[in-house]
């Protein structure tokens, strides 16, 4: 009796510790690196010019947050990323649906779009500055152009790769026009569209960093560049970590979107 009892406890204990360990395992390496960093900064092996100690980065974060400066910059950057993404991805979705669904639109537009696609968005910077100056419009334009193509290409591909068997079936069951589009073609294209959205959400931060370093009066990029001028490596690091955090959040958001919209697909459950 007693032996059986301890056996059961041992099993429960090992199950608990194994799930606990497996949820903790991915964080062992980052924690060790953080510890190494702190120790080598304190021991003087790392100059604060190169890399400030983690503790001072945390302090810089706290100071910036308490003064409200951080939130202004964060808000500005989020607004830029959000509006650039909305304009670029919206246009990509609309044009992708158009060229995917209508032969004539494809003939008319696709060649041109494919040519423009081969120009890196960042190569447009000199021209964009000449066109729009260095204010918000220039940044919005860069973000929108960069984000446009992943969404456009994946939407086009998604529409074209909708299972023709399903379309044929739906038509023979009397579904046509808008209901056919809404119930068959669009949901069929959705997995591909979401791949484009996810890619674009990752790209928007990269473009934002570049756009904000052109010239800005606010934003995380501005904060970081400004701190560089004054050799505030701790603030620079806060900026870099913020970008990492925002990128991760964008990725989580797009995963949540996939989980919701593709819940019918066992691969996303």
């Amino acid at each position, binding site marked *: 009796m007693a032996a059986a009892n301890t056996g059961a406890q041992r099993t429960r204990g090992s199950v608990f510790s194994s799930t606990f360990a497996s949820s903790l395992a991915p964080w062992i390496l980052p924690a060790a690196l953080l510890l190494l960093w702190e120790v080598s900064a304190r021991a003087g092996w790392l100059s604060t010019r190169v890399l400030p100690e983690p503790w001072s980065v945390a302090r810089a974060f706290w100071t910036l947050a308490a003064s409200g400066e951080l939130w202004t910059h964060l808000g500005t950057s989020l607004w830029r990323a959000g509006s650039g993404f909305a304009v670029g991805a919206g246009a990509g979705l609309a044009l992708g649906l158009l060229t995917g669904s209508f032969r004539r639109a494809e003939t008319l537009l696709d060649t041109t779009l494919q040519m423009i696609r081969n120009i890196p968005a960042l190569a447009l910077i000199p021209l964009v500055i000449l066109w729009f100056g260095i204010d918000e419009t220039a940044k919005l334009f860069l973000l929108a152009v960069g984000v446009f193509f992943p969404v456009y290409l994946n939407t086009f591909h998604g529409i074209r790769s909708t299972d*023709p068997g399903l379309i044929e079936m739906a038509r023979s069951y009397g*579904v046509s026009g808008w209901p056919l589009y809404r119930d068959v073609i669009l*949901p069929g294209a959705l997995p591909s569209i979401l791949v484009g959205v996810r890619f674009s959400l990752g790209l928007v931060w990269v473009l934002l960093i570049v756009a904000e370093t052109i010239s800005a009066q606010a934003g995380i990029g501005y904060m970081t560049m400004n701190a560089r001028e004054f050799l505030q490596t701790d603030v620079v690091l806060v900026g870099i970590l913020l970008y990492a955090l925002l990128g991760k959040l964008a990725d989580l958001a797009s995963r949540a979107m996939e989980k919701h919209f593709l819940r019918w697909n066992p691969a996303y459950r």
Partner: protein
Amino acid sequence: MLLAPTYFESDLIADAPAQEQSARHADAAPLARGAPERQGVPVSISALRKSYGAREVLRGIDLQLKPGEFVAIVGRSGCGKSTLLRALAGLEQADSGSIAMGEGKADLRIMFQEARLLPWKPVLENVALGLPHALNAAAAALSTVGLGERADDWPAALSGGQKQRVALARALVHQPQVLLLDEPLGALDALTRIEMQQLIESLWLSRGFTAVLVTHDVAEAVALADRVLLIEDGAIALDLAIDLPRPRAAARGNGDNAAAFAALEQRILSHVLRAHA
């Protein structure tokens, strides 16, 4: 193999003229709910021809089906049996000849070899496809095929046989006067096939639609059909009446039936083999 070759030639959401008629019938179908089951209609095919390039797939098919008749079409792959069925369904345009069903236009539904369920719609909404206001009728049809409890599941959660039963329910909600079956049981395992054959036979007996089944399984053709047609090189090579008592899909192994069954099956098979010897 012949899947929608015309699909990229036109805009995706443009209507094909052949589909408009079925859309109109789909709107009218809910009114027929509660009314007595509709009877099958006669089908008349004359001098139907179809070629793909230089290859002639159908060489002047003439065929008369009585209302409510169950006809099975067998033949080797590539003999033109599927093309004939797709022409009947209006999915394929014949080069010449004519197809007439009932007076004017009949309500026709097709079951494909794959279930072709929309994976992003729950089972019940799949059954109600084309009849979005007929959810009650769809639920009733789903119960008829024995899947009433799976109404809210995703199609991905169903087995192959269950998917085909959902596809059958989807066809039945429309109360078709003609049901076309394009090898719908071809991908199922032996036991599930027999279950499906019984289900199709009993639904056909109770509802009385005209049925055309394309299959490469001669035993299945004999089990289900009033008449078995053998198509060879685009023409009807054999037209054999099957005069066995019904329901037979369930009882084909029993007593006297078994011998008659086997004899008919043998006769059709030997015809197929002789033609290629």
